[in-house]
């Protein structure tokens, strides 16, 4: 019997399912960042708002990257459904902590995808995911730098912390 699946699809079916789940996670992240941007906007924290708008569009790009990868390789990518996004926060610090937690979750999810690729010998997807492994490392580092800022400037007005946010991305 011919391997028609392999003729049509260059990635593993199980991996494809996991990639579709990852699409959903990136979409959820994108929405979550948008909610954070909105909170910052309402609280007069312009730079933090800009930071989260940028994060939100980056997450959308990640989503599209995976989306394209699935379709280009003969699979079917599914448009994600996003529900119940958190809009209530206590403080800017809490928001950045939530952002770090979210990034850590995404990192873990990417890592388990890589693990699965190795198990199933899907080298194509593993290679594709290398970019994400690196991206996640940078994202986590960025969020940690912001949280360090809160530790250093605990007694300063929030406005000053907000002013330092754009500089952190360039570092």
């Amino acid at each position, binding site marked *: *019997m*011919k*391997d*028609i*699946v*392999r*003729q*049509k*699809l260059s990635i593993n*079916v199980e991996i494809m399912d996991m990639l579709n789940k990852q699409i959903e996670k990136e979409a959820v992240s994108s929405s979550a960042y948008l909610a954070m941007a909105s909170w910052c906007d309402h609280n007069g924290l312009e730079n933090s708002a800009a930071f989260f708008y940028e994060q939100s569009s980056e997450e959308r790009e990640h989503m599209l990257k995976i989306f394209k990868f699935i379709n280009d390789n*003969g*699979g*079917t990518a*599914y448009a994600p459904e996003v529900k119940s996004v958190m809009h209530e926060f206590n403080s800017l610090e809490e928001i950045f902590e939530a952002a770090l937690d979210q990034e850590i979750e995404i990192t873990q999810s990417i890592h388990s995808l890589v693990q699965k690729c190795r198990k199933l010998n899907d080298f194509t997807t593993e290679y594709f995911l290398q970019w994400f492994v690196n991206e996640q490392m940078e994202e986590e580092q960025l969020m940690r730098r912001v949280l360090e800022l809160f530790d250093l400037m605990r007694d300063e007005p929030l406005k000053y912390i907000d002013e330092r946010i754009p500089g952190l991305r360039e570092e």
Partner: protein
Amino acid sequence: MNTLFKAHNFTSYQCDSSRAFHIDFDHKLIKLSFCQLLAFREQIKNIDLETHFSGRNKHGIEILVLCNRSHIFIFDTFECIALKDLMEGTFAMLELNSLLTAGV
């Protein structure tokens, strides 16, 4: 045509010459491209059987539209369970075939 898997009254086949798949629904045989088979699998996967038993799905039926809307099916709970088996079995067989082909 090679038989891939049989579950209840449903059978899936692979046709090497047309590079396509077929599903026999007992009363109707439909041809699917691999892409359409993937789409069908996704629809089956998304059926939440729980709703059939909790009463949230009052009539216990699922309506599926397949292959760019050229077919419409109505399945009851029992058939939905069989379809889930069919898809799992079919893809397990395809996976096995891939392993065997790659091994030769």
